[in-house]
């Protein structure tokens, strides 16, 4: 669903004005949450800016589709604001908003089953200069003509063949670098489950990408 751009209410500072204000030490999440609960949208805006990249990254790697990720992340943050009253502070806001985003994404993927359409983001400058990736393509891959873009497509296609929960643990651990403990908190399960899912998911990926991972 396309977002509905609407103007800020009269009197509320616009984003450039807020950004222009002198930057003090970043407020604690709990302070921002208290203010957001009272309806202060700029406090919630700070929270969104703080976590949007990580949340977007997770959702994007789960869907392999930029437009879907964009919609899902917006919905997750809006749901988060609407449900702030039920946030008890038992976990960090980061874990809580992650859970909302992850569950919405999993539900979305289940509904959209077998109708996957990739819309991949461009690779940044780092990809062409990453020594590991260069080595992987030039030395270790039997298909030496494989370009980075082709490899990116194959990798995303292989990710989409995993189940949602397995894709999620690979995304959170191997791509985003979260620890097993953090993932267990986000998924509300124990660490053993995370480890076993991760191992199984890697085995599956290894099988799907065997052409690109064979030793020379």
């Amino acid at each position: 669903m396309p977002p509905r751009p609407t103007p800020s209410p009269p009197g509320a500072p616009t984003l450039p004005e807020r950004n222009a204000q002198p930057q003090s030490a970043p407020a604690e999440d709990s302070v921002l949450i208290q203010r957001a609960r009272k309806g202060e949208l700029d406090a919630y805006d700070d929270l969104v800016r703080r976590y949007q990249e990580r949340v977007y990254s997770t959702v994007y790697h789960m869907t392999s589709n930029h437009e879907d990720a964009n919609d899902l992340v917006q919905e997750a943050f809006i749901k988060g604001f609407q449900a702030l009253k039920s946030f008890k502070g038992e976990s960090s806001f980061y874990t809580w908003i992650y859970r909302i985003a992850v569950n919405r994404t999993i539900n979305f993927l289940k509904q959209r089953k077998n109708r996957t359409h990739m819309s991949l983001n461009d690779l940044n400058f780092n990809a062409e200069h990453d020594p590991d990736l260069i080595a992987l393509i030039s030395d270790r891959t039997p298909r030496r003509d494989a370009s980075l873009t082709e490899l990116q497509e194959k990798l995303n296609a292989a990710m989409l063949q995993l189940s949602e929960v397995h894709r999620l643990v690979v995304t959170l651990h191997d791509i985003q670098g979260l620890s097993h403990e953090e993932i267990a908190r986000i998924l509300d399960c124990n660490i053993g489950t995370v480890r076993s899912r991760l191992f199984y998911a890697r085995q599956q990926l290894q099988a799907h990408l065997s052409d690109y991972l064979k030793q020379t």
Partner: protein
Amino acid sequence: MNPEFESHDTLKKLLALKRCEQPPPGYFDDLARRVNARLAGDASARSLPWWERFWLNLEIRPALACAYSVAISSLLLFGVGYSLSGRPEPIAVGPAPGYFTDLPGRMGETESRLLLLDGASGIAPRSQSPPPVLIAYSNHFAEPAPPADFYKGYQLNLQPAVYRTGP
């Protein structure tokens, strides 16, 4: 199997490629602005009703959802079990014990014999046992027959049915 293959080192290096996928420049400024604008534009959507917050809580905490479903199922099972165990035992209805054995004596000269089914010879009289009678002492609903003087007020001429064998 190759230990490196087993430890997924190459796969981890390949997955690093995913970290290089970046949205268009300026996308995150736009994302925060859009979220803010949607919240500012729809004041009614700023808070959820309690049931939607409850549902969201269940959605983001599968363990809580599981606990709720187990509790509800247990309550349901307990309720069903309780309703079955609390049902009263069926009450034996019909004439008092010994009523039929005393009946021939009370009926005086009335003769009756019980018909027994014998597989080989068919129907044979059982003369050595006290002659029973087949009388409808209860209604279709297996309720006890009313006392003998029940119908007196109605002046009905009732007579017990007697079934006899033979000509």
